[in-house]
C-alpha cells in the first residue's frame, strides 16, 4: 500500500517543482490565459472518468462515471477553446 503512495508522491513533488519552474516567470499579460489553459489541463480527470464509465461494474458506477466524463469534458473543451479565443486577441 504505502509503496504505491510513496511512488506517487515522488512523481507529485517532482512535477510540482517543474510546474513552479516553468510557470514562475509568466508575464502578467498572460495570467488569465495561463489560468484558463492550466484549468483545461486539470480536466485530465476525464481519463479516470472514462475508465469508470466504461467498465460497467455497476449501474451506479456507470452513472457516476458518465457525470464525471461530462463535467471533465466541459472543463477540457471549454478551457482550451476559451484560452485560444483570448490568445487570438493578443497583438503586438
Amino acid at each position, binding site marked *: 500500500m504505502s509503496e504505491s*503512495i510513496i511512488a*506517487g508522491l515522488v*512523481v507529485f513533488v517532482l*512535477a*510540482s*517543482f*517543474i*510546474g513552479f519552474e*516553468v*510557470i514562475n516567470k*509568466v*508575464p*502578467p*499579460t*498572460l*495570467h*488569465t*490565459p*495561463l*489560468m*484558463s489553459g*492550466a*484549468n*483545461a*489541463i*486539470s*480536466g*485530465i*480527470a476525464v*481519463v*479516470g*472518468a*472514462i*475508465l*469508470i*464509465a*466504461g*467498465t460497467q461494474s*455497476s449501474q451506479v*458506477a*456507470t452513472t*457516476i*462515471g458518465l457525470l*464525471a*466524463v*461530462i*463535467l*471533465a*469534458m*466541459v472543463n*477540457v*473543451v*471549454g*478551457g482550451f*477553446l476559451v484560452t*485560444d479565443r*483570448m490568445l487570438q*486577441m493578443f*497583438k*503586438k
Partner: protein
Amino acid sequence: MGGRDDRIGEFFMGFEMSLGWLVPVEQLTYLLAASLFIVGLKFLGSPATARKGNLLASVGMLLAIVVTLLDQGIVDYTTILIGLLIGSAVGAIAAKKVEMTEMPQMVGLLNGFGGAASALVAIGEYWRLSHAGMTVPMNVLVTAVLGVLIGGVTLTGSLMAFGKLQGLISGSPITYPLQQPVNLILLAGFLVGGFYLVTHPNDLNIFFDISAISLILGILFVLPIGGADTPVVISLLNSFSGLAASAAGFVLGNDMLIIAGALVGASGLILTQIMCKAMNRSLASVLFGAFGGGGATSGTATATSSAQKSHRSVDAEEGAMMLGYARSVVVVPGYGMAVAQAQHAVRELADQLEKNGVEVKYAIHPVAGRMPGHMNVLLAEANVPYSQLYDMDDINPEFERADVALVIGANDVVNPDARDNAGSPIYGMPILEVDKAKSTIVIKRSMNPGFAGIDNELFYKDKTMMLFGSAKDVVTDLVTNVKELVTA
C-alpha cells in the same frame, strides 16, 4: 503506474494477455501527454508562443483521451461517447458565448467542474471496488477520501465564487458568530469520518457523509471572502482543481494524472501568491479576514472628514485639451472601465491622441480586474497592442515624466494613502503612483468612495482634476473633443 492496471487485470486476466502490447503503448502515450502539458505550459509563458502552447497541451489531452479509450477494461462505449459529446458541446458553446468581462466567472465555473469530476472519479472508483465485494485497499481509501475533500471544496467553493461574481450572492463578506469554530468542527467531523473508514473501509454511508461535509466546507470557505478578494480565491480554487486531479491520479494509480494535477496546482499557487502580494495581504487574512467588514467602519470615519475637503473638476473639453497637448499620457484602467464597457472608447481615445503625437501607455495593476491578468485580456479584446501595456513595476518610475495620468474606473489601486497613511485599511498595498504625474484626470461617476468604502486622497490633490460621468460617455466625449483640437 501499476495500481489500476493490476486491479483491472484481476477481472480481465485472459483478455489482457492477448492484448498485452497495449499496456506499454498506453503508458508511453501518457508520458507523451504529460510532456506535452509541460511544454505547453512553458510556451504559454510568452505572448509569441502562447497560442502554440495551448494547442500542444490540447493535443496532449486528445492523445490521453484516445489511448484511454483503447483500455481493455472498457466494455461499454455508449455511455462514454454520450458523456464526451455532451461535455464537449457544452464546453464549446460556453467558450464561444462568454463575454471577456465574464472570464472570471467562466474560469471559476470550469474550476468547479474539474474539481467535481476529480471527486466523482474518486467516489466512482471507491464504489466500484466496494461493489465488487473487495475490501477497498488502504492506498485507494486514503487518497479517495482526500480527493473527495479537495474536489468537493473546489466544486462548491467555485460555485460560490461564481455566484458572487455574477451578483447572485452578495459580494460583501458574509460573517456569522462562531464562524471559525463551526468550520473547525466540520473539518474535525471529516477527519473522524476519514479515520473511521480506515478501520471500516467499506462503510458507504460514512463515505457519503464525509463527501457531504466537504461540499458544505467549500460553501463556508468562500462565504466570508469579499468581492475585492476574488482574484485570490479564483487562483486558489484553480490550484485546488489541480490538486483534486492529482488525488484522482493517486486513487487510480495513474502517474499522468498526478503530474498534470501537480502542474496546475503549482500554477494556481504561484498566481495566488502574486495576487496576495499585489494586495499586500497574506493568504490567511484573505481567507479568514472578511475584508471590507473592518474597512467599512474606518471608511465611514474618513468619509465624514472628506466633506470638508475640496476637489477640482473639469469638463470633457478642458480634459481633451490637457490630453491633446500633452507629450505623454498614461492611462490607468480599472474594473469600472470594464463594467462600463468603455475599453473600445478608450482605445479610440488613445489612437486619436497618438495621431496628435502624444505618447500613450497603459498602466496595469495586478489586481485591476477580477482575476489575474483580466485587464490585459479586456484591453486585448479592444485591440490594444500588448506592447503598450505596462506592469506596475515598469510604469511607476515613468509617472514622474508623464504629463497626464488618466484614471478610468480605478480607485483603490491609485490611492496614495496605501503608501502614505499607516492608518488606512489598505496601507502597504502597492499602488500605481499616478499622483507623481504632472497632472491627473480621474473619470468617476461621483465622489462616493469605492467598493471597499475607503476614501481616496488622490481626488483632493491640487494636481487632480475630477471628470464626472459614466466612463463610456465621458471617454467618447473626450475623443470628439480631441478630434476637434486637430481641426481647430
